[in-house]
């Protein structure tokens, strides 16, 4: 059995090593179009896992919560979907996050948060992790749309100006330090800095 397998493998190896009789043009053509199809398919797959429909197929209760917030519906219709905040837009970071997300499939299979009770029990843990992630990358996903350099303080409320022109401007604080729970309900906030 093992011998047979080895023989087959060495046959394949030989086939791969020996030059083909096909023209260079044909091989280039194959490589070029194969590349387009592979990359296109990969990208389409990535995009498909970034849609609201895909997220809500498991996270339905959370998707329900965002509906009353300004990021879901507002006067001008400019909105953010799950992936805008939870998946980095930068390519390398996006790939890293997508690989990390494969762990969530295991959690899904094990049913870690498959009932509301289990979910509420674990909610603080999940939130803590997401806050830590955003704190670490200086709230990059907020800043993809809300660019500090273009904030007009004269258009903001006095409370906003007070915070944005000081702590945010000098880098002491980042968006997520104050803006927690803006798109979801909050977990138990006992011991979270700035909450009571």
């Amino acid at each position, binding site marked *: 059995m093992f011998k047979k397998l080895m023989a087959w493998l060495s046959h394949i190896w030989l086939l791969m090593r020996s030059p083909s009789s096909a023209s260079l043009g044909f091989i280039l053509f194959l490589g070029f179009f194969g590349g387009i199809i592979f990359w296109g398919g990969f990208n389409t797959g990535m995009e498909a896992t970034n849609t609201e429909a895909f997220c809500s197929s498991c996270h339905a209760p959370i998707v329900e919560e965002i509906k*009353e917030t*300004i990021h879901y519906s507002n006067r001008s219709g400019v909105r953010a979907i799950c992936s805008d905040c939870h998946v980095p837009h930068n390519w390398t970071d996006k790939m890293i996050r997508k690989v990390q997300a494969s762990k969530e499939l295991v959690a899904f299979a094990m049913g870690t948060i498959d009932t509301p009770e289990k979910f509420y029990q674990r909610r603080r843990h999940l939130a803590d992790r997401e806050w830590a992630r955003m704190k670490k990358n200086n709230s990059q996903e907020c800043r993809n749309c809300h660019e500090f350099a273009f904030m007009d303080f004269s258009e903001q*409320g006095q*409370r*906003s100006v007070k*915070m944005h022109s000081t702590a945010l401007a000098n880098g002491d604080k980042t968006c997520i330090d104050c803006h927690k729970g803006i798109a979801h309900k*909050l*977990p138990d906030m006992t011991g979270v800095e700035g*909450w*009571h």
Partner: protein
Amino acid sequence: MRKQTIAALCIIGASALLSATALVSAETDAQQAETVVTNNGGITSLRGNVELNTQQQPEELKKVITDRDPISRQYVHQPPVIPHSIRHYEVDLNANKCLSCHSWKNAPESGATKISPTHFETREGMTLSDVSPRRYFCLQCHVPQADAKPLVKNNFKPVDALK
């Protein structure tokens, strides 16, 4: 062959009859619903002087004051009203967004009004180490304001001390 055709015809006939009776009964139901007499006795409620089965055209929504200086009180023990928007501020078992600015700990930094010491007291007047549960739900007394005309004419005047 002929028997089968007859059977099929019978089935079609029966189903047609059934659906026809269903349609007729649905129509009579609809008629009955329309003729139900509603009478509000000429009483004007919050939804206006309209019959129950008519939908009143709702008024335009009022715009909440987004952010301004504190609004002065009209009488001594009046709970101060909220001079800013509180859209999506969570106040429940898990979190109290109001306290993240108005608590004694956070007020100096945020510049917000501190909550009153009365909010730390039990019903019997004993002072607790934290906000009393009976004062925890801020929005029971403190409410945001809209720039709207009063619904009812009011001649209330603040006491001299607050003028």
